[in-house]
């Protein structure tokens, strides 16, 4: 995970500060008069709808930020502000240090052709084009010649495991397959920033799980900077490096999945976290005891990034403390089976002992 210490070294790839999006005729004027304190009810009376209310987020290179919220929370609107599909009412958005909102049409088109890719909830495939042609579309728009763009598109077809179906039309594919095409299309120009707007929401639960796995596999290879929008809290927990939870256009909490589960900032966030089985969400790292170097360890070692549930049984069968290691096999902490029992069967206590 690109942890907080990376923050100080790198410029964020996407940086929004105090972004407002208000729909309606007098939005600009109302906003100026309100001095940044936007009350949705008051705006509504004046015929304005508040989409995004004072949102600030930063996304770092290789990080996956999930924006989570129920319908009408403004999550998709915020994403559309950042991709500039809708014009922001007020605020600053910088992409790679460049002011997005100050860009002219040509610069914006250039940015989208080279840096951005986006996946849509309804797949948004062009119905008259085949799988291959759909994937090649952004390349052809860019002006790459037919044979090169088709070759590149064919690589993408293989990447999303649709080989053999490249000449199918979208209507001949299942929802999951169509979204694979959408994913392949958004990746065809090798964008640095990848926007996904509820990409799996229109899919059946089993397919959704499969697509999430596929998506994690891709991200493992590609290391894109990702903004992912979803209304599914479990999906957010599963995928995110950090989660921004939105309600009525306001970001209620922006933190890592573990912190959100363990320390919900508002009652609204708590409602989501209450029912979440921690062992299925939290990684060992978030519950391990810090390493004081004197312990007598078991032979078993576990990764700090392992989900608790997947290693709980192994830990419980050890009598000694189990060392926790990072990717370079340095011991960074340890877990005892008693802790496991606490987490699995005594949830409130586990929450107290968590960081």
């Amino acid at each position, binding site marked *: 995970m690109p942890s907080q210490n990376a923050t100080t070294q790198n410029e964020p790839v996407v940086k929004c500060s105090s972004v407002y999006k208000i729909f309606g005729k007098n939005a600009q004027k109302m906003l100026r008069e309100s001095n940044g304190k936007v009350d949705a009810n008051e705006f509504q009376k004046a015929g304005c709808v508040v989409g995004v209310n004072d949102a600030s987020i930063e996304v770092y290179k290789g990080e996956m930020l999930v924006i989570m919220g129920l319908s009408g929370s403004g999550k998709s609107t915020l994403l559309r502000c950042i*991709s500039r*599909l809708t014009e922001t009412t007020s605020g600053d958005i910088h992409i790679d240090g460049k002011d997005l909102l100050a860009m002219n049409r040509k610069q914006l088109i250039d940015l989208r*052709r080279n840096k951005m890719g986006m996946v849509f909830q309804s797949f948004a495939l062009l119905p008259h084009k085949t799988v291959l042609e759909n994937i090649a579309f952004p390349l052809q728009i860019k002006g790459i010649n037919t044979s090169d763009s088709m070759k590149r598109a064919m690589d993408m077809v293989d990447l999303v495991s649709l080989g053999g179906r490249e000449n199918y039309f979208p209507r001949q594919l299942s929802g999951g397959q169509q979204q694979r095409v959408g994913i392949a299309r958004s990746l065809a120009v090798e964008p640095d920033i990848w*926007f996904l707007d509820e990409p799996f929401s229109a899919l059946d639960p089993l397919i959704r799980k499969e697509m999430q796995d596929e998506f994690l596999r891709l991200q493992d290879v590609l290391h894109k900077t990702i903004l992912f929008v979803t209304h599914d809290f479990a999906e957010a927990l599963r995928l995110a490096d950090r989660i921004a939870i939105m309600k009525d256009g306001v970001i209620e909490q922006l933190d890592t999945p573990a912190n959100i589960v363990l320390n919900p900032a508002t009652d609204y966030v708590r409602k989501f976290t209450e029912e979440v089985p921690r062992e299925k969400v939290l990684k060992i790292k978030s519950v391990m005891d810090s390493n004081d170097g004197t312990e007598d360890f078991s032979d078993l070692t576990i990764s700090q990034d392992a989900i608790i549930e997947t290693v709980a049984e192994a830990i419980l069968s050890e009598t000694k403390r189990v060392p926790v290691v990072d990717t370079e096999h340095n011991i960074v902490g340890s877990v005892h089976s008693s802790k496991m029992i606490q987490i699995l069967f005594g949830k409130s206590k586990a929450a107290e002992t968590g960081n």
Partner: protein
Amino acid sequence: MGTNIYEKHPKLAQFGILLVGFFLLIILVSPSDTNVLWRLPPLLAPLPGMINDLAENLMFNWFPVQVYDPDLDDYEQTALLRELTRGFSRGVLFLIELIREVLIGGVKTIVAFTGWEYIRENPWAIWPALPWTVVVGGAALLGYALRGVGLALLAGISLSYISIFGQWEPAMETLSFVLVAAPISILLGLLFGIWSFKSRTVEAVLMPLLNIAQTMPHFSYLVPVTVFFGVGDHAGAIATIIFATPPMIRLTLLGLKKVPVEVVEAGMMSGSNDRQILLNVLVPTARHDILIGVNQVIMQCLAMAVIASFIGAKGLGFNLLLALNGLRIGQALELGICIVLIAVVLDRLSLAWANKQTDYFADLNFVEKHRFGLIFLVIFVVGVVLAFLGGMIFKDGINYFYFIPHNKGITTEYIWQSGVDWMVDNWYAGLQGFNRGLIINVLQPMKRAFLSMPVSATFLLVMGVGYIIGGTRSALIVGGFLLFIALTEWWDRALITAYMTTFSVIVAMIIGLTIGSLCAQNSFASKTILLVCDTFQTFPSFIYLIPVIMLFGVTDTSVLIAVIIYASIPAIRYTVEGIRKVPPHLREAGLMSGVTPLQRWIKIDLPLAFPHIMLGVNQTVIFALFMVIIGAMIGTDDLGQLILKALSDKQGIGNGLMLGLCVAFIGLVVDHLINTWAAQRKAALGFGE
């Protein structure tokens, strides 16, 4: 459902009061020329004359310009508009001649570049016709290249039929005219459709114009076109373009509006500029509706083939008209089939072209890449050689491998004719009995009833219904349409048109509901009947007159039967579609409550499908109106008859336009009422569209 009926009650009560008022007026208002409650004074009567003067002024006096005349070697004074329309006419005519002469030869294209002098001095300078075998082969090859063997066979056999039956020349004349009119209509339709998609103002201006344009009968366009563009093939093509473009505009706009926002966003996120969004995203995604538009354009073009022959378009339509006038049913039928075949082939070819796929990874050598060009070359050479050989084989001066003249083709005319004769001999008494019975017992009383309606009663009824359905606004709109008609001299004629339309619509709806409901019970039957409807809809409206005249001769009954058949098509289609659209879970809920099939039909299918069926009624009315006007060709005494008369009158432009507007307004009254009602009903039932 129970609460719905209660909710309806206030409206029912209003309707009852309205009917009472209506009949009171009928009883109380006495027929007299001076009573404005009986008939309004024809205040608009001078309007046609004014339109005539205006048109004449525009054509001959407005904005004079100096134009160089090469024949006189001098400048000549003429009106700007006249020069513009002349130039346009010349352009269209040149295109038609060009295509025509590629197909059947001629000299006019050469003349256009040189002059008649040149032809006289060089008798060899005649463009030779393509042998018909080459055209047939080319069409089949095109079909194969676009779709496959099936389409190749369809195109090949259809064109062979036309040639073998000796209709080659008129068919190619019609084809050349369609090949010019259709692309121009499609292009104009696309342009205006896109423009109205981009600009709300354009849409707001265009929509009412389109409404009127689409409800004006074909004939009313003819007079203005002859005034501005003269008479001939080009005038026919221009009338066709005017008539065929509105549905294309409408469908383009509809299609563009239906493109999902996310698809456009996906285009933008791919970095498309405005042009790419329009051409690579919006238009192709709206393709389905645009293709329906293209199909409609082609159908309109062929439907106009007959009507355009009134103002000098040559081809199948002209011959069909002659055959109908001469009551040569067999010949008319053969010509009709040719028109239908051209329509079907063009339609399928254009669809196949739009759906064509490309193979990007095929590794092609020169021959494979150009194989269709090479095959055509072979077909061309073989055809020419065959034609050359034919010149030696056939000794009677007619080369059947080159061109089959009209009187030398196969004909089945005598079979049909003897069939008709047989039917006349054997069934005449019975048919005439039915005919007379219908006229005396149903049609004439109905006509009398319509004519004995005081104008005040008509207004009360129509505006009252408008008020009940859509409030004051609707009442005023339909009242305005009626007022226009009532102030012309033709109110009585309009009532006759209304009576014929009403009768046909009632019968067509009974047929449509019965057949439609029966077929909708089963998905196979539904598909079949929709296919039949599709096929029948490709027949130009004129075709329907042929068999009916065969049986009933030239009478009101013939016209009405043709109208009924033609109008039943949308009635059936919308009934089937409406019932098939009823959500299955509602039917299942009904089944689980133990309804019988009849109960299900009455309590579930019909009420839920009703809004959609009413849209079908709307279509039925428009279809019936058109057909009633076309029926005037074989003799009725309604508005259509007058429109026809206006055609032969040089000063007819004013009358023609006004009469056309009268018919259009009858249609628009019905259209407005039904659409308003259906929209409310659909919203109430919760299926928004």
